[in-house]
């Protein structure tokens, strides 16, 4: 469904990704792992068109999307939930979610409020008045409201209390049941391995390893080698 072939991406003059290649099959959840600064976020941004892809090609649904403006990529069915929790602080929670909603999306506002009970409570509050964790859930809901074919989740459990991490994990399982295609960036290795079908590991902007969940669970050292101390 999504194929990255030898992607290079830059921030200004400095190169962040060096020839990253991998693909994601339909209905698959792919975990993207790596240390801080490995280029996980950049990879997601490059797919989304927020970072210019200097070399290489991104194909989605058989179509080349690298080079398209972000809103066109979004309309093609790719959605990013960023690690920075970009809530629209002046819009109410409900307006935030509605703004994401596109007709035909299976995730209607009503359904999302059910999936995220905590959000229901804050429906009429301004986005900016929520705590960090609440915002994280709201932004996930907003992303789902678009009815994406591919969801890019950047560290959804970051900074969440255990109870919220559980809530996020539940949402992930629900997405898995829905057979939604997801790329998940996670520091929480346990959570990533709970839901992911496959794992790709980045190091210093290079994809250094790719393996199935079974392989990862069978050989944890192979994964941790890249995540822990050099």
């Amino acid at each position: 469904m999504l194929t990255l072939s030898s992607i290079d991406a830059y921030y200004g003059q400095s190169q962040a990704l060096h020839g990253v290649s991998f693909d994601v099959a339909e209905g698959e959840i792919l975990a993207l792992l790596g240390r801080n600064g490995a280029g996980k976020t950049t990879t997601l941004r490059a797919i989304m068109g927020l970072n210019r892809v200097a070399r290489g090609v991104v194909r989605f649904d058989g179509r080349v999307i690298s080079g398209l403006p972000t809103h066109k990529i979004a309309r093609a069915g790719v959605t990013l939930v960023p690690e920075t929790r970009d809530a629209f602080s002046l819009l109410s929670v409900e307006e935030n979610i509605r703004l994401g909603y596109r007709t035909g999306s299976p995730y209607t506002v009503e359904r999302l409020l059910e999936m995220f009970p905590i959000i229901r409570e804050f429906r009429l509050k301004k986005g900016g008045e929520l705590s960090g964790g609440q915002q994280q859930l709201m932004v996930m809901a907003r992303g789902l409201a678009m009815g994406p074919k591919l969801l890019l989740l950047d560290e959804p459990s970051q900074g969440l209390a255990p109870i919220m991490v559980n809530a996020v994990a539940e949402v992930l399982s629900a997405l898995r049941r829905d057979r939604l295609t997801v790329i998940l960036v996670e520091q929480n290795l346990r959570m990533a391995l709970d839901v992911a079908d496959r794992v790709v590991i980045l190091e210093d902007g290079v994809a250094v390893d790719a393996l199935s969940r079974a392989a990862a669970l069978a050989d944890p050292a192979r994964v941790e080698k890249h995540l822990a101390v050099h």
Partner: protein
Amino acid sequence: MAEPVTVLEAIELTKRFGKNTVVDGVSLKFPEGRLHAILGPNGAGKTTLFNLLTKDYPVDGGEILLRGERVTRLRPHQISRRGVGRSYQITSVLRELTFFENVWLASYRADHAGAPGLWRDFRAHWATAEKTRQVLAELGLEPFTDRKAADVSYGDQRLLEIAVTLATRPEILLLDEPTSGLSQRESERVKQLILSIKGKFTIIMIEHKMNVVMDISDDVTVMNRGKVIASGSPAQISTDAAVRSAYFGL
């Protein structure tokens, strides 16, 4: 053993946003030299409590005592000058400045009580520059010395955030989720760092990572919906029924 002195105390602190009471009559004592962790679900009011203690937000009710002195009406920089340093949950390093400049500003404040100098090039304040390099080295950030903060990954910015806070050489250190956004390796490094300074400072830390909290803190307070629901040692807290239901959802 004598009861340690209380350095910072919140009495019935209250903060409202519109109709919502976000911090609701919180009273807490922070004894000198201890590491005090604050836990609580998202939205419990932990960050807001910090914002009250450092006067980033005006207080709607209650008092703050710093070494017995009433500081409720002071402004943020005055609180800081009385030895309270903090890091932010939402990274607030100066993105357009280099790592060196970020940390330099904090070190300079620690070295220099009066108004900032007007004449000598800031880099030519040699002693401050030296201390700046030390702090960067301690956190393993030397390679970034002349990098702009905006140009590094979020995780590295988090480390810088902590470096800046430490460089002010505070007596009381407020850390808001110091390890969030850090990988296991960096989390571990920060944890070691905190352990190494523990005892020298009074540390108050908001943290979600239970392993970090349980391993290193002396006291734990749990908040929920703006109120303190439990206080005690890590062991006591992990078995507290109220905490288990509000925080762990068990």
